[in-house]
């Protein structure tokens, strides 16, 4: 106590400027606590500050830009009029404009008219949202839902839902690891790293066939320790666009059952792959039908265009309703110290659209239009590539791949060439977002791809 008083006495408000060195000598704190020139009365403002080598955070290094989200930043800085942003998976119209769905606008107007309040949601989120979300994923008549075996907790879009699941895995399955596809969405590894969940990769993309390395995938899943979590993309695999066939899904389910693995689906593109919401959920439903317990992280960013509202869910399908209730209670315990309770706006939009038969039908139509535009663009790009490339390279993978992305097979140097020479922005793994492509730009893109592929190593 007395030393505190002594220190206080030395720094009386009426003291005129004390240099940093004088302070150090009298009070004896080191350079790293770096306090600055103090001048004038305590309640007044200092008119000058000094900050050389005195920050506690001096050792903090500059982090690299995010490999996916950083692409858009770089795109914005480019002044060239030919520039094209094929980085992040955000849907664009043919005019390359962002798109707010009509059903979303209608829902927001309805919400405004009703004048709903802004009270805290429960930790697990909006009940109406959770209900329609599980039903959208599994089908309203799914026995798992009717038996109360599905625990659904609203999360911050796909990322937030994956993170909650990862935190749950870390706490309750500390000896288990997650198997992730090679390649996978760039942020998956970050999520598991930050949640301290170990992971390893299973073979997925075969560059020779530009298709699925099915045997490698099965072998790696078999080789993993029993009871591992297997991260599966429900549809429209990101970044490759390569999905297993229904037969292959059955075999994957067989192996997972054999090994007592726990399937962990990431469903970010339901509706965007084939255009049909039900068809795109068939992989998940297949596993549920077998009686497997599993996790599913869902996102409404793309299919309802609600990117910035951060709306999604983590679903855990359990063997009993009692288990589902317990699991839900523990997911809540993880959410509370992260953000307390989730944002209400996006949840209400979803509940209004998915929960209203008319808006839901209208949504299905808009969904088909969006998915349809991407299919058209794939077709045009494929035609341009085939016509313009005289080397005889097989570009049909563009047509076979599914969803927003195409994995071009371009390596980093070639991807850099796309950007540096052609002002086409994409991720360095060779992934392009077809959602950001218009029919009118397909030719330009084809030229760029052909050039990068053949002239750059």
């Amino acid at each position, binding site marked *: 106590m007395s030393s505190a008083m002594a220190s206080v006495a030395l720094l009386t408000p009426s003291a005129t400027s004390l240099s940093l060195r004088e302070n150090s000598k009298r009070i004896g704190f080191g350079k790293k606590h770096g306090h600055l020139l103090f001048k004038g009365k305590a309640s007044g403002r200092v008119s000058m*500050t000094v900050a050389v080598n005195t920050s506690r955070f001096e050792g903090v*290094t500059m982090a690299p830009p995010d490999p996916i989200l950083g692409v858009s930043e770089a795109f914005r800085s480019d002044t060239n009029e030919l520039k094209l942003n094929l980085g992040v998976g955000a849907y664009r119209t043919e005019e390359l404009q962002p798109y707010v769905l009509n059903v979303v606008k209608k829902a927001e107007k309805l919400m405004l008219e009703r004048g709903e309040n*802004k009270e*805290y949601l*429960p930790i697990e989120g909006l009940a109406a949202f959770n209900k329609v979300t599980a039903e959208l994923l599994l089908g309203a008549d799914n026995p798992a839902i009717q038996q109360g075996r599905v625990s659904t907790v609203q999360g911050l879009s796909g990322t937030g839902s994956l993170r909650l699941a990862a935190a749950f895995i870390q706490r309750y399955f500390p000896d288990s690891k997650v198997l992730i596809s090679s390649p996978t969405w760039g942020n998956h590894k970050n999520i598991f790293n930050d949640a301290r969940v170990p992971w390893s990769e299973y073979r997925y993309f075969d560059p020779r066939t530009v298709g699925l390395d099915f045997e490698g995938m099965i072998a790696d899943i078999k080789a993993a320790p029993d009871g591992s979590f297997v991260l599966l993309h429900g549809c429209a695999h990101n970044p490759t666009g390569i999905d297993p066939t229904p037969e292959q899904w059955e075999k994957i389910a067989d192996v997972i059952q054999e090994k007592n693995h726990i399937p962990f689906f990431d469903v970010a593109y339901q509706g965007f792959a084939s255009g049909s919401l039900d068809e795109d959920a068939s992989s998940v439903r297949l596993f549920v039908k077998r009686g497997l317990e599993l996790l599913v992280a869902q996102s409404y960013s793309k299919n309802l265009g609600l990117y910035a509202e951060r709306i999604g869910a983590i679903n855990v399908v359990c063997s009993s309703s009692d288990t589902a209730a317990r699991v839900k209670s523990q997911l809540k315990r993880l959410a509370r110290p992260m*953000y307390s309770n989730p944002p209400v706006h996006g949840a209400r939009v979803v509940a209004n659209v998915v929960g209203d038969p008319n808006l839901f039908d209208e949504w299905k139509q808009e969904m088909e239009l969006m998915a349809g535009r991407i299919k058209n663009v794939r077709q045009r790009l494929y035609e341009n590539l085939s016509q313009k490339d005289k080397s005889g390279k097989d570009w049909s993978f563009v047509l076979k791949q599914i969803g927003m992305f195409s994995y071009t097979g371009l390596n980093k140097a070639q991807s850099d060439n796309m950007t540096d020479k052609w002002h086409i922005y994409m991720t360095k793994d060779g992934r392009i977002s077809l959602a950001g492509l218009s029919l009118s730009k397909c030719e330009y893109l084809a030229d760029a791809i052909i050039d990068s592929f053949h002239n750059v190593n």
Partner: protein
Amino acid sequence: MASEDHSHGGSVFANVTQATEDPILGVTVAYNKDPSPMKLNLGVGAYRTEEGNPLVLNVVRRAEQLLVNDPSRVKEYLPITGLADFNKLSAKLIFGSDSPAIQENRVATVQCLSGTGSLRVGGEFLARHYHERTIYIPQPTWGNHTKVFTLAGLSVKTYRYYDPATRGLNLEGLLADLSAAPSGAIVLLHACAHNPTGVDPTLEQWEQIRLLMRSKGLLPFFDSAYQGFASGNLDADAQSVRMFVADGSECLTAQSYAKNMGLYGERVGALSIVCGSADVAVRVESQLKLVIRPMYSNPPIHGASIVATILKDREMYHEWTIELKAMADRIINMREQLFDALRAKGTPGDWSHIIKQIGMFTFTGLTSEQVTFMTTEYHIYMTSDGRISMAGLSSQKVPHLADAIHAAVTQH
């Protein structure tokens, strides 16, 4: 192996137990289940009108109308750090628009999920980048603080704060405990309207705390959830923070718009880190992005857009200050009414702390047995530490509450 466990039907989740309800949010859960017409929810700190209804501020409705009816608005991902305008305006709101720290570009501000999210991101950043991994929190403090910081990777210690004997600040204990803290340790400070006690240091006491912390190189981490709600004046309620920043110190500040703009469910807040130099601030911001991206990628747009719309428009800002003052005044009025009611009944004890304490909450001093009694017999819901939310009280409910307190105190 989970599959060998038959007691739960062979579930892989067999060892997952039922968690208890969150102690604060669980109060509302219990309240909702109660069928009694007399029931009163004084649990969670959400403002209620005199009629007992939730309130959406007029200026918030207006801002929302503008946003929803604007055909040029899109829902593209925000940057990881959030809405730029919102961040700048939030920093100005808490630090003052003339703050040298802002003018010198020394403040890294990132939009987060309300107060909780800002505290969590700040805690994670410190756990990764700061050499001292212990945070000192006041005793008592908001129930969620310990969990937030622990899961962020910090270890949590406490410093004395509340003196039950005086129902005021234990300044001597506070200064002693902070003196004993290792140099450079992180110290959580409630910027105003301390939760749950409502006991705030005076400006002179803040000055003593500031000087001590400065001499020990302790790092302040402000939790500002009630700016404008404590006194009714936004600048007055930011004095503690501004005092610390004024001497050039580095600090962290978690801001929430849940209460002062009534945006509870929208989850709007900001984390600001005041750094020693602009260069450090740039690097710090880049590292904050690495914390956020694997947590939820980027923050939600709706609430932040509402805040930015209001803060950047002179007239709307002014309207906000008026509505905010009205809320703060109603709470002060409830304090006076409750105090008067207890005095009129001759309820034993000194109840002056009801009118001395500041902000949404009153730390009644009731024991957990007395609290249980009040819930069971009078259907009054509050947290077991005796904290009541004055924001949930109305004139017509004051007599019922006074009766309940009187009965609890005289019968237990």
